[in-house]
C-alpha cells in the first residue's frame, strides 16, 4: 500500500487524523496530539497496515511550533508511514515550556528510549511514560540542548566555558592562565546558565568573530 492508501484507511478508522502532506520532501500525515496513540494503535493492529515496528520518534523545534514525528514501518507489507504531531508554541514560550504528547509506550515498547531522548534533548514531555528522565545527559543537567533558544552554559563542573572567560594573552593588570576550578558540591547542577546569553554560532559553519575590547 502506498502512503495515500494507508492515509485513507487511517482517516476512515481513527478520529483526529489530518491531511497527508506531500508538499515538502517525505509525505507525512498530520495527527493531533490526542489522536496519535489511537492512530499508532490502529496502524499496528490493522491487518492491511500491519506496522509492527516503531522505527523512530523525533521532535523538531521550529520557530512557531514543536513537531513530534513518528516513523513506523511494516515488515509483513513492506511499507512505512510518517506521522507528525504539531504542537504550537504559546506566546512567551521559554525554556520552561514543555510541550506534551501522550506516550506511545503502550503501543510500541520501542518508544520508551526514543521518548526519553526527545525529553532529554528537546524538552518534549510524554505523558504517561513509565520512566520520564534523561537518558543521554547527566541527571543534573539544566536545559534542553537541541532547542533553538538553548543557552550554552557558562561553566561546567567548575571549568569556565564562555568564549572570553579566560584571557589567553596578557592585558593590562591581568595575568595569563586559567582560574583554578572550584570543586563541585555533589548534587549541585553540572552546568550553570550564564548571566548573559552568549552568541550562537551561525549556520554554514562560520564561527562568530571574536569580540575585541574589554572582557
Amino acid at each position, binding site marked *: 500500500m502506498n502512503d495515500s492508501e494507508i492515509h485513507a484507511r487511517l482517516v476512515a478508522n481513527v478520529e483526529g487524523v489530518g491531511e497527508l502532506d506531500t508538499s515538502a*520532501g517525505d509525505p507525512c500525515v498530520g495527527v493531533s496530539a490526542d489522536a496519535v496513540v489511537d492512530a499508532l494503535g490502529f496502524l499496528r493492529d490493522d491487518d492491511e497496515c500491519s506496522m*509492527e515496528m516503531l*522505527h523512530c520518534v523525533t521532535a*523538531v523545534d521550529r520557530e512557531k511550533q514543536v513537531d513530534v514525528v513518528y516513523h513506523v514501518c511494516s*515488515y509483513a507489507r513492506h511499507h512505512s508511514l510518517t506521522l507528525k504531531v504539531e504542537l504550537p508554541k504559546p506566546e512567551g514560550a521559554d525554556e520552561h515550556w514543555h510541550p506534551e504528547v501522550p506516550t506511545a509506550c503502550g503501543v*510500541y515498547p520501542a518508544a520508551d528510549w526514543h521518548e526519553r531522548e526527545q525529553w532529554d534533548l528537546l524538552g518534549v514531555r510524554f505523558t504517561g511514560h513509565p520512566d520520564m528522565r534523561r537518558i543521554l545527559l547527566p541527571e543534573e543537567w539544566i536545559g534542553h540542548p537541541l532547542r533553538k533558544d538553548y543557552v550554552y552554559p557558562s561553566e561546567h563542573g567548575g571549568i569556565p566555558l564562555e568564549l572570553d572567560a579566560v584571557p589567553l594573552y596578557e592585558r593590562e593588570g591581568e595575568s595569563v592562565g586559567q582560574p583554578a576550578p572550584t570543586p563541585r558540591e555533589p548534587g549541585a547542577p553540572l552546568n550553570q546558565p550564564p548571566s548573559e546569553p552568549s552568541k550562537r*554560532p551561525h549556520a554554514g*559553519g562560520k564561527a562568530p568573530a571574536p569580540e575585541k575590547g574589554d572582557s
Partner: protein
Amino acid sequence: MEALEMYTVNARADVYTEELRLNLGPQHPSTHGVLRVELGMDGEIITAARCDIGYLHRCAEKIGENVSYLQFTPYTDRMDYLASMNNNLAWSLTVEKLMDLEVPERAQWLRMICVELNRIASHLIAFGTYGIDIGANTPFFYAFREREAIMGLLERPSGARMLYNYIQPGGVRRDIDENWVADVLAFCDEFEKRWAEYNTLLSGNAIFIKRTANIGILTKEMALAYGCTGPVLRGSGVRWDLRRDVPYLAPYDDVEFDIPVGEGTHGTLGDCWDRYWVRMREMMESIRIIRQGCAQLPDGEVMTKKQKGMYKTPMKPPVGAAYVRCENPRGELAFYAVSDGEASPIRLRTRAPSFCNLAVLDQLLPGCLLADGVAVIGSLDIVLGEVDR
C-alpha cells in the same frame, strides 16, 4: 528454557539474604565501550537490569545543526566507528534525497563494494570480541588478521584505515587505483578459507555452544516491538534485510545474495548462538556480493558534477524533510534531516540501530547468570558511538 528453570530464586524465610547491586561498567572489559548496566543480583543470578547510557554522547545532532550538509559527513563516520562506510552511505543518501542529486553508476557500485567490505570488517570484530567475552582469547587475533587486509584495501581509495569519509553526497570522493579490484578478489579467496577456520575454532566448539545456546532468547514479537533490527532481528527468525526488501542502492538489485536467519540450530530460536551465526553467514554473503560487484563494476565518473562546488559554497536544499534507512552491520541506520532552505539542517536525527537494540537488554538480562549477561550483551553487538552519538 532449561537455563531459566534452573534459576528461580529460592526464598527461604530463615536465611537472610540481600540483593546485591553490581555495577557493570562503564569501565569494563566486556561492555563493548562505555556502557553502564546497573544489575540487581541474587548471588550469580541477575534479577534486575537497568542500562545507563550517555557516556559517549558527543552532541552530534547539535553539531549537525551548525555545519553544512557536506561537513557533517565525518561526524557520521564517528558514530558507528566500526562501520564508517555504511554511515557515510546513509547520510549521503539522505542528503541526495533532500537535494535531489543523481549519483553516477560507477559510484554506486563502488559504494556497494566498500560498504560490504566494511560489513565484513565490522562482523569480524563482533566475532573476535564475542570470543573474548566467552573466554576464548585467540579468535580475536585471527579476525584482526583479516581486518588488517580490509583496512589496507579501504585505505587505498579513501586515505584512512578506519574513519573513511569516503562516500559523500553525490558519489564517492576518489576513484580506485587499477589494481584494487584484483586485490579485492584475492582477499575474497583468502577469506573463504579463513572463514572455515573460524568455524572450527569457535562456532562448533562445544563449550562455546553451551555458553551461547538457549541464552538471551529474543522472540520475534519482542524484537519487533522493541525496534530491534539487523542480525538481532534476523536471529529471531525474521527474514528482513533492507538491501533486499527496500533497496536503497540500485546495484543491490543486480546482485544475488541470501539473507541468513536464525533457525534455532543448537537451542531455541532467537538465542545468542543464532545471532552469532547470522553474522558469520552474513560475512560469506558479503563476499558473494563483493565478487559480483567487482565483476560488474562499470566505468564512468565517481562524483556528480553538482557536488564539485560544494566545498566552497555550501548547497542549500529546498524546504522539506527526508528519512532514509540503510542496512548497517548492526541494524537499520536512518537519518532524518529537516531542511528550511538554509545551508545546515534545522534538525538532524540519527536513528541508530545499536540504540534501539540495546533497549531490549533490560528485558533480556533478568533471569540470566552474570556470565550469560556478558554473552547477551556481546550478542547484541552494540557500538557505544552510535548509541550515544
